[in-house]
């Protein structure tokens, strides 16, 4: 018996190693071809994408800076997916948080910073949660698939931003579609101002908030009964309901928390980087959040690592435009390839493993970080 178990464990490790090697080869082949097509030496390109940003203090801090918004959105997505709530509207929720921050930031001239910053963060969180509310209510009250409704609200949110920037918030002097610069009291302080060890950089308070959010999310998910309920709902809504968990209420709360974190991401970008609302405030941070959450296996430590990795990739991709003339769009190809190959590899691993254990996937315990195959609660497939 013990021998059996040990052999199985060894097989699993061996298999995981094989799959990992296969995944790495696939990633290298696909991304390497992209680099070659772009006319760059792949070895130089990988070095520029992943290593160069880590070699100087300024670029290293920029990695943390670029990671900040996707750490927020990755956390927002991961929390929702853990509960089996497919919030793909993080992009729109982020934009609403950015709108709230820009709105509050314009009217607080002369207020004390210590009052303004919490107000702005709360306002952004509220705006993000409000944008997440309608799809969540439709899901829990009427069983309307949240994938569609959250997705459809993303273009609507962008239109709200554009409407404000081409209408009431248009810069009166330049006529550019940019909101007026926010009051100084509303700007997130840069970390180099109050942490002596940190050198000159754009890194701002938002990064600290992102880390705090991740730590809290980790603690709640893995150490509290609330987290247990969230995970139970994600693993099996029917089982959770049977165990007396209020599934709808849990999903609604998860959706609102996810939206609120996304909203804070918008606040962080406006108050920490742009200091005003622009149409390009989010180059798809909400969708990158899905990549971060999945690469991180929907766990908080995983989100932290994946967010930093993609931050690294982002800084590397923009510096490689200058140093190697690789178009920045290759960064998106690399990111998407990473996502597809990693979830493909995980699927192979799970499939083989469950087969070996003679446990068909639909009877075995669903894997904790991939609550898939669950139709909306109200409309169970027959």
């Amino acid at each position, binding site marked *: 018996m013990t021998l059996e178990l040990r052999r199985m464990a060894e097989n699993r490790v061996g298999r995981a190693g094989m799959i990992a090697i296969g995944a790495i080869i696939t990633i290298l082949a696909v991304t390497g071809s992209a680099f070659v097509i772009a006319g760059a030496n792949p070895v130089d390109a990988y070095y520029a994408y992943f290593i160069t940003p880590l070699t100087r203090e300024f670029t290293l801090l920029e990695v943390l800076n670029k990671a900040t918004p996707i750490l927020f959105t990755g956390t927002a997505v991961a929390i929702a997916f853990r509960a089996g709530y497919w919030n793909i509207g993080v992009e729109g929720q982020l934009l609403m948080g950015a709108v709230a921050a820009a709105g509050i930031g314009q009217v607080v001239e002369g207020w004390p910073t210590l009052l303004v910053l919490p107000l702005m963060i709360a306002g952004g969180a509220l705006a993000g949660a409000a944008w997440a509310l309608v799809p969540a209510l439709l899901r829990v009250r009427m069983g309307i698939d949240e994938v569609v409704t959250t997705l459809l609200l993303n273009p609507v949110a962008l239109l709200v931003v554009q409407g404000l920037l081409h209408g009431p918030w248009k810069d009166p002097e330049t006529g550019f579609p940019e909101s007026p610069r926010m009051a100084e009291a509303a700007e997130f302080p840069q970390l180099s101002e109050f942490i002596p060890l940190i050198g000159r950089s754009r890194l701002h308070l938002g990064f600290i908030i992102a880390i705090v959010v991740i730590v809290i999310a980790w603690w709640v998910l893995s150490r509290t009964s609330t987290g247990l309920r969230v995970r139970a709902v994600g693993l099996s809504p029917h089982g959770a309901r049977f165990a007396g968990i209020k599934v709808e209420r849990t999903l609604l709360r998860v959706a609102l928390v996810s939206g609120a974190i996304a909203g804070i991401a918008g606040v962080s970008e406006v108050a920490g980087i742009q200091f005003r609302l622009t149409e390009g405030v989010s180059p798809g941070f909400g969708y990158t959040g899905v990549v971060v959450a999945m690469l991180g296996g929907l766990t908080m430590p995983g989100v932290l690592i994946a967010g930093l990795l993609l931050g690294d990739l982002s800084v590397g991709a923009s510096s490689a435009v200058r140093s190697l003339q690789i178009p920045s769009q290759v960064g998106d190809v690399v990111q*998407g390839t990473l996502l597809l190959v990693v979830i493909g590899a995980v699927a192979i691993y799970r499939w083989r493993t469950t087969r070996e254990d003679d446990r068909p996937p639909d009877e075995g315990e669903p894997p904790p970080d991939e609550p898939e195959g669950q139709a909306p609660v109200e409309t169970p497939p027959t």
Partner: protein
Amino acid sequence: MTFFADIMAATFRNATPLVYGTVGETYTERAGILNLGVEGTMYAGAFFGFAVAYHTGDPWIGLLGAIIVGLMAGALMALMTVTLGANQHVSGLGLTIVLIGISEFANRLMFTGSTLARIEPMPLWDPLAGLGPIGTIANQYGLTYIGFFVVVPISWWVLMKTPLGLSIRAVGENPEAADVAGISVFRIRYIALMIGGALMAVGGAFITLAVLGTFTLDIIAGRGWVVIALVIFGRWRIFRGVLGALIFAAVYSLGLRLHITPGFEGIPNEIMLALPYVIVIVALALSGRNVPYPGAYLKPYRRS
């Protein structure tokens, strides 16, 4: 009268990409696969269709290029969700990210100059010219005619009346039973995803090859997400989905038109553009309760 004729004509034109996308997505979802790669597939169809047309000088060869790209996109989605059994939501989003990335990368490599690359767009077909408003409405691109009068009825026929359609619906409802009946679940799902991908790509290519004659970034602008909603609104039935596409396009066209109509200038354009999305969500809320999802929706199939 011309006002309504113009709106009607614009409705059919604006509905065309949605019709191709919705019919394509209906194939994949009837086979049990939610393909969120539709946004990226339409995007890649729009770009590569244009790129091929630009280099060959013939928009119809460009259309062929888009179809090939769509078949490949469908095959990649099938590899992820059918062969590997990976999560469908994330595979689809990943496919969209990859396809938009590749398209924009290729766009950057191929069209770097300062002048906007253009092609001679596909001509309008005007069979009823001279019949006043009816002639205006009938003045449409060939792909619109093909979409409404060829692709839609044939797809309905294929899905509902042919052995292939029966197989597609069987593997989407109950893959175990289909497998027992000798249907290859994998093969049928690959076929459905590839047909679907080709149709989505044509929907995207319609915008570059016929309407615009050029490619611009963010050209699909969320139409793929609208398609996902229309399929649910249509309850996986082709004609109901097409009806949804027409309603969406009518609201969209009316909004664009009202924006330039005297008396309505005060309404911001963005509200007009957001209205169709809001209406789709409202329509889903009103009609989407207890919709009959395909039985094997989102479920990978494994012989156990």
